[in-house]
């Protein structure tokens, strides 16, 4: 673990996230089988797949909380496995399974994580994220007293505190009502466009994926088996919607050849 200046892409078009030949074995079980992909600045990439396909394992490895069996992960130009602290200072995440501590208020949680992520000018940044996720009225409310949707919004506020180069969102709108979800998608899209943050987004809501992602990857049994534009991909494989394609891939990934254009 090393400290240092924030990693930066070599140029504005270089990927902010590069994953190469990433593998994870749990004993004899191969959860992730040598996947390679990248995310460019400002790009929102959907990571799709059935439960157990390896999405969360992949995200855990990019977050540095799970060591890959093989392969490499670069945040900007920084090798995560060699310079963990430096790489993670430019990463952040929100996931439904990782709510912030319920015994602290929204302000207290954001203050603590601002210190952990080295956020400068916290007061101004706090106002920005509270505004972005409509959290001002909950500022001094303990997170445990918030509804699940409100807690999700606090998690997203935390995820954007340090203006990350790479933002990992694991089903970020899973417990949010459709109207709020639409606002949140819009906030994340404009955040990514404005700050050139690369976003890796998992979701089981194909409507949402079509709306926000410029590219999707289908993960099945630890392998990326399909990749492309979510609006064009269904037609290429003879399906009318992304959801229909998802179901086909989920039911029989081995038969993908039969679907090929």
């Amino acid at each position, binding site marked *: *673990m090393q*400290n240092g200046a924030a990693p930066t892409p070599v140029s504005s078009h270089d990927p902010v996230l590069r994953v190469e030949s990433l593998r994870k074995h*749990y004993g004899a079980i191969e959860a992730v089988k040598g996947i390679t992909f990248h995310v460019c600045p400002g790009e929102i990439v959907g990571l799709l797949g059935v439960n157990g396909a390896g999405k*969360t*394992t992949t995200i*855990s490895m990019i*977050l*540095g*909380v*799970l*060591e890959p069996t093989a392969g490499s992960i670069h945040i900007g130009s920084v090798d995560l496995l060699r310079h*963990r*602290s*430096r790489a*993670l*200072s430019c*990463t*952040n*995440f929100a*996931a439904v*399974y*990782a*709510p*912030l*501590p*319920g*015994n*602290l*208020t929204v302000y*207290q949680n954001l*203050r*603590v*994580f601002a*210190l*952990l*992520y*080295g956020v400068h000018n916290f007061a101004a940044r706090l106002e920005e994220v509270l505004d972005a996720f409509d959290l001002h009225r909950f500022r001094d409310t303990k997170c445990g007293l918030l509804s699940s949707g409100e807690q999700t919004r606090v998690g997203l506020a*935390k995820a954007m505190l340090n203006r990350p180069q790479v933002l990992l969102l694991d089903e970020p709108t899973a417990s949010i009502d459709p109207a709020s979800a639409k606002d949140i998608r819009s906030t994340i899209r404009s955040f990514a466009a404005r700050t050139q943050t690369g976003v890796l987004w998992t979701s089981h809501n194909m409507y949402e994926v079509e709306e926000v992602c410029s590219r999707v990857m289908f993960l099945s049994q630890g392998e990326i088996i399909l990749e492309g534009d979510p609006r064009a991909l269904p037609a290429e494989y003879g399906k009318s919607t992304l959801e229909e394609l998802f179901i086909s891939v989920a039911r029989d990934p081995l038969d993908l050849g039969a679907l090929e254009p």
Partner: protein
Amino acid sequence: MNLARIAAIPLRQLYLYRGSAARIVPLFAWVTIDMVLWGFMTKFLGSLAHTSYRFVPALLGAVLFWDFMTRVMQGVTTAFFEDVWSRNFLNVFATPITMPEYISGLLFTSLATSLVGLAVMIVVATAAFGLHFAAYGTMLLPFILVLFLNGMALGVIAIAIVLRFGPAAEWFIWPIPALLAPFACVYYPLATLPVPMQWLARLLPPSYVFEGMRAVVSGHTLNGTLLAGAFALAVAYIILAYWIFSSVFRHAVKTGLIARYSAETVS
């Protein structure tokens, strides 16, 4: 080491203490009860013995210092348990914080909470039972330092156990001071123990502190070399404790235990 990241750990604890009587009361309640109980016990023993032996500094003082070491250990473990109880591992360990920074944050938290307990014990023992710290002379600070270092080492080993074996292993941790007390010679001289127990006692830095404390209050000369050895031993245990915790953490990252800690095992 990044000071802001270190500060985040005690700041979180400060927020928790600020709004919670359930956390504030134990900082002073149990040590006060211990001082009162052992204060009267000391008085009673003093009335029976009819000797010049100074029970207050030798026995009540020893209990006070042992309680302080226990509070140091619990200061580290309780701060860590807050992350266990709130299932916060994924959030914390996905930040840029490094292991030395995280451990340092826990140690600063422990320093603050244990000093509160020490201050309360000093007030009660001095005001109610006439304990005077002048009885320990210039050795007072070295005694406290060795016990503080030993408490930190125990705390870090304890959290390594919980990280390795899951939240339920918390129940291994609370009795650790009680398990060590017979060997630490808090209440009686080392020579009281059977020889095999004396061997074990010599591996514990507190046993040198309490032997030294009894020597000082009895007017004997303290063996400075032995106390220096106890200090070196306590430092060695801190290094060992850090190594154990780092190894357990690396194992947890390798196996995925950090990401799935509530499952207690990934096997």
